């Protein structure tokens, strides 16, 4: 059912635009030009973050930070198996999906750890990446309390996820 909705909506949009006598081909090209401009302005931020994340992980600094944070995080109800995932989550979407697959392999996908990890990933997003991408084109550089507020809200979500998956 859902498979039909998207093509149907796009057909409806094209027909509606034709009825409204809009130059469809020209507008389409305009939109694609926007896409190029957008990625052009986002790329420097992406490259900087990815270079940083790569150094962070491969140097072993990531593993070190994970070990330091295991204790305090387990005090607020987050099991040590999830520490690495929680640290990586705000930086890299693909990275956390790969880590999630590793967790599925190490524990069964229906275990508590795997389910809690699934909800951690499913209910949060990559704060640093979104910050870089969303604000890139607007040239807004002073984000004030945006990132701390987002990370704090994510932590509340992580605690909730670990708690809920014990009972549900």
């Amino acid at each position, binding site marked *: 059912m859902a498979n039909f909705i998207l093509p149907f909506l796009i057909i409806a949009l094209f027909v509606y635009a034709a009825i409204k006598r809009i130059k469809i081909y020209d507008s389409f090209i305009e939109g694609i030009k926007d896409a190029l401009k957008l990625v052009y302005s986002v790329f420097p931020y992406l490259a900087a973050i990815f270079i940083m994340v790569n150094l962070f992980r491969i140097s072993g600094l990531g593993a070190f930070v994970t070990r330091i944070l295991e204790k305090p995080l387990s005090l607020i109800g987050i099991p040590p198996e999830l520490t690495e995932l929680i640290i990586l989550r705000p930086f890299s979407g693909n990275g956390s999906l790969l880590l999630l697959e590793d967790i599925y392999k190490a524990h069964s996908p229906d275990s508590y750890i795997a389910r809690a990890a*699934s909800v951690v990933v*499913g209910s949060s997003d*990559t704060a640093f990446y979104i910050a870089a991408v969303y604000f890139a084109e*607007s040239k807004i550089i002073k984000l004030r*309390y945006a990132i701390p*507020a987002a990370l704090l809200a994510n932590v509340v979500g992580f605690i909730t996820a670990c708690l809920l998956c014990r009972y549900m």
Partner: protein
Amino acid sequence: MNALFFLIIVISLGILTVVAPDSVLSIMIDGGKSALDLSLKMIAIYSVWLAVLKLVEKTELDKKITSLFEPIVSFLYKDENKKAKAYITMNMTANLLGMGSAATPLGIKAINTMNRDLDKDTATPNMIMFFVLNATSLQLIPATVIALRAAAGSAAPADILIPNIITSVVSALSGFAFVKIISYLKRKRKTKAS
């Protein structure tokens, strides 16, 4: 961000200089390469979505979509302009439908068109609210995660749905509360100072 960037890079490079100095350059270039790979994918995806969006705008359908969530959008984003509200609504709709790839370009457009402060390079409380709500994920059905669980052989891959929805709502509400509390405290301090 500048301080964090400095710290992570310098400490990582320090460790690598001791452990594996030869690999430093290739690690950094690999980072750039992943950014390039992702950018190419983004160009492909955004070409489709922004072209469709252009048609939505030209047909003025965006104004109709805006009226869908008008009360909640006006409540969350006080005194925002109409154009920005349209992008915000479309970003919300795409997120709720699980079309993350369409939500991102709409989010960027929303930030671009939102009202600015006198300091043009500073994020307004509305922008911060919008960013925080996106960072706590408005997506109700985690399609990718469910697919990964199914692929890993889970007996009931979708049984995380209810905890996931509750968690999403809890983290969105706490994000909303944090932004409101922090901006209230900042305003109070400002009026005290002046």
